[in-house]
């Protein structure tokens, strides 16, 4: 068992928040988003899940940036956030349009694009 895991599970009294803690949180966020994306069919929820994966990745980058004292990580995350904001507007507009067509948010309603 690695040190980070030991800290996280509070097996040792050491209370310092290290890089590993951030990475574990980041991985958890990403995994939750992925599971949500795969298991849910509601377009808005699926969209939110992708946002969750985004933020997980962003958290990892900020953690690395902090760890190596390199601001590229933070800059990149701010850039991604900006893009994500624009993309969210676009994606939600699409969702609205798709909803108007089928009166449903279920992705199964759009399954005719099969080969």
């Amino acid at each position, binding site marked *: 068992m690695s040190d980070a895991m030991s800290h996280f599970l509070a097996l040792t009294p050491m209370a310092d928040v290290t890089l590993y803690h951030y990475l574990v949180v980041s991985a958890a966020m990403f995994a939750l988003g992925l599971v949500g*994306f795969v298991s849910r069919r509601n377009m808005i929820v*699926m969209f939110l899940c992708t946002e969750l994966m985004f933020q997980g990745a962003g958290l990892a980058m900020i953690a690395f940036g902090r760890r190596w004292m390199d601001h590229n990580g933070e800059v990149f995350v701010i850039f991604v956030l900006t893009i994500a904001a624009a993309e969210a507007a676009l994606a939600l507009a699409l969702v609205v349009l798709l909803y108007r067509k089928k009166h449903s948010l279920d992705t199964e309603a*759009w*399954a*005719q694009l*099969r*080969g």
Partner: protein
Amino acid sequence: MAGIIANLMSGLAPTLATAHGAAGHAVTNGAHEAAAAHAATPFEFITPDAGPGFALLILALPLLASVLCGVYAALGIKGKFPAWSTVVLLAGSFVATLMAAGTVFQSNAPLIVHGFDWISLKWGNVPGQSLTANFSLFLDQLTVLWMLFVTGLATLIALYASEYMAGDRGYARFFGFFALFVFMMSCLVMGDSLVLLYLGWEGVGLCSYLLIGFLYKKPSAVAAAKKAFIVNRIGDLGLALGLMLAFTQFGSLEYKEIFRQVAELQAGVAHGHEVPWSIRAIPLLLMVGAFGKSAQLPLYVWLPDAMEGPTPVSALIHAATMVTAGVYLIARFLPVFELNPAALNTVAWIGCLTAFFAATIGMATYDIKRVMAYSTVSQLGYMFLGLGVLSSAGAGNHVVTHAFFKATLFLACGAVMHGFAGQLDLRRLSGLWHMKGWKIVSASMLVGCLCLAGFPLSAGFFSKDMIIAESFVTEGFGGSLLGLLALLTAGLTAYYTFRVFFRVFVGPVEYHAGDEHHGDDAHDDGHGFHPHAPGWAINTVLVTLSAFALAASIPYLIMWFGASHDGWITGLVSHSTAKASNITVGVDHTATFLGANPHFIMYFVSGGIGIVGILVAWLLHFRGRTEAATSPGAEEAARAVGPILTWATNKWYVDEFYDFLLRKPLWFLAHVFYFIDALLVDGIVNLFGWMPRAIGGSLRPSQNGFLQSYAVGMTGGLALLLVIVWIVG
């Protein structure tokens, strides 16, 4: 014009002079002296001079006529413009030939007229490593002889066709092909190299194909056209191989070089040298081409079927000119043939057997145009016999006289066909002589029949006798068997010729219309049929041609009374490469037939046989005949010969035999190959087409359209990648 006639006559002058000198002697002596002229002196070739450029017009004018007809057809011009421009330009070509003849007669050497440089290849510096074939003309008296009747007859027959083809949708197309044929025939005859001859050879074959299949909506015409083309391919293969072998042996395809070397070879033979087999094989190959084009055994089968073409085409191409191309080829290369007596022997026997065989079929055929076709095959056989027994002069004479009387016969048959809506069955026509407006046709038919039957003192009589007599005196050719068979054939010829005349042109008047109607005068309105007599164009041409056919005998008569057996054409033939040198084949000057010189006695024997044939035809087909369908004599004769008549009417089942021997096996083989192609070749090709489809089909279900399954796929892929990285890393 007067100068040209004078030149033509000057060619005769020496012969006439000797004739007058010998007038005091007995006829037999004169003939013996003439025979003694066949001394064995090697062939000599005189180096050619440059000739007059206007001779190129002989070729250029028909080509121009053909192009003009193409323009008329493209512009959709109606009317008789194609006919008139063709007739005028062909007449121009004939005049140019006459003028060229005048120049040629004044020159001792052959003339070469350079048109333009055509093929010039060089791949080494050694002789034989270059090929030169210019578009040049080779003019000697043999060329002139051929071109005179080719262009002359073409002009007359084009005039005939202007009326005959009237109302046909393909009027311009007809004259375009017709003029193209004359151009190609000129290339064949006048070319100064084997390459140009080959071009013309294939060109006339093409035109023949196009014109036999002129009525391309008629299945029998299309089949006949294909048959003619395919059978000719077999012969042309022989010609092509002969041409290639000649190139390897002589290192050139130009006549002037080939004949220079042949003259050396013949001089060598005179000194007892052997001719290498590779050179002796050349005539054997060339004659295969000649047999195909001139419809000899075993390749004659296409010519009778070629009668599906319009009658002017049958008259010009399939009777008078194109089919004599084989005779021209052998006559032109007679010095080469003389290097191999076996080749000459083959030519003589094939010719003689063809003459006999075709005559037997002609006796039992009911279609008058096909009777004439078999007669053409038979007469061409005589020409080959003449060449084979080294009577190139006889062959030359027979070509010319035959061209005129056979064209007359065909055009007369064509007039009948035209007037009676395609009726050609001699059992359904009778007594045309007594019908209004058919006198000229009947009289021309009579003239043609007399010439073909070898009636005494007609042109055909003289030219045929030269060949038959020569086959008795030339040594080493199966004794007198050739001559006897040729004499028998002469009797058969007289019979089948006058069978047609007595059945169709005299006797009770009776006719039944055929089932073809010419465009503007369809008689299918249910009001009965009225035959329409030929108009001025057809009558003019018939009168002119029969006048020529009659007049062709006058020079013979002059010389006959002058105690010479040489015809007027003999002078032309012996001033060319076609002159026989008798270097390998001797002449038996002491040979006799019925106790006399064959050249002398033959006039009486063959004349008598001709008259007997005519009498038999009269007995069987005229005496006591009251209806068109049959006659008492013919029925009696049919009972006497029994099934032989049926066999002969069915052409001795040669077509069926070829069908069984060649067509059926080929058909079977074609189907075998078809299945191999369909199963194996197509199978492999289709397999490659089927594979991507199969792969795509097996992968298609993964594209199910559900977003989640794609996401799972991506996640799974990512996981797989991570695992790999974890293991490897």
